[in-house]
């Protein structure tokens, strides 16, 4: 079992991934600009990708890299659709504040 490579323990990479995920999560929760929220979500996607690739390298198993590939695709699709929603909302309401656009809040 490979727990370290190139002198760096696998746990360091995992801690880095979780820190990035935490930063992204905080941004997605706290910011009001939907664009910055989307970018924070991209940060979280990338943190998950980093974890996948670290474990793929640690256990020399390609499955992690394949799954990271899938995550990149999902992130691209998500960004395209979410940005389309932002554009549509701006076109209708002339604003993009996520707290002001609340038709679907119920």
């Amino acid at each position: 079992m490979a727990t370290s490579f190139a002198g760096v323990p696998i746990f360091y990479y995992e801690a880095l991934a979780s820190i990035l995920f935490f930063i992204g999560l905080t941004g997605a929760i706290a910011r009001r600009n939907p664009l910055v929220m989307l970018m924070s979500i991209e940060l979280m996607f990338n943190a998950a990708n980093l974890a996948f690739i670290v474990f793929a390298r640690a256990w020399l198993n390609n499955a992690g890299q394949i799954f990271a590939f899938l995550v990149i695709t999902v992130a691209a699709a998500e960004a395209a659709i979410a940005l389309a929603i932002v554009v549509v909302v701006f076109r209708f309401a002339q604003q993009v504040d996520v707290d002001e656009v609340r038709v679907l809040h119920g």
Partner: protein
Amino acid sequence: MIPFWIIAAVLIVSALWTVTARKPIYSVVSLLLNFAALATTYLILHAEFLAVMQIIVYSGAILMLFVFVIALLNSGIAAVVLGRDRVPVAPAAAAALAAVAFVATAIAAAHAPAIAPIATHSPLGAVGRGNVFGSIGDFGQALFLSRLLPFEITALILMVAVVGVVLLAGDLTPYVPTRRRAEQTRRALREAILREGK
């Protein structure tokens, strides 16, 4: 060890800058830095194909999309007015809890015995060499031979995204019987959104 610390510092600082920047375009620039550093990390971790994909898909496609939308919104009729950012007390606590859970899982996973130590037949070799773990050939063989289903799911996801974006952002007028009704629908929807936003 030293390259790792440099890259980790760049990653964390650029992520923080992305989240805290006042203007979205600054967030995009710092996110670009973040993605470049992450691609370097992928190279260190023998994920050559994903490092290139990171640059092409994220920096090339997704960030360009963000830049175009920012340009679109800022050059619109009205200025983008935003309220104050929330003070995230309870959500930040939840996020911290999630981060703790994530770190705990990572520690547990890092110390767990490997179930399948070596699932690929390729040996580990220098980055950039062919026929070693993580090289383009190795990745392609895994993608097209043993794990074809995720690749096909990828195609489906992209198709759904394309159709969704065209339906959302495209002009919906052809899908409503008459142009007058389309205009009425659009106006009613806009008024509903504005009314609810008060």
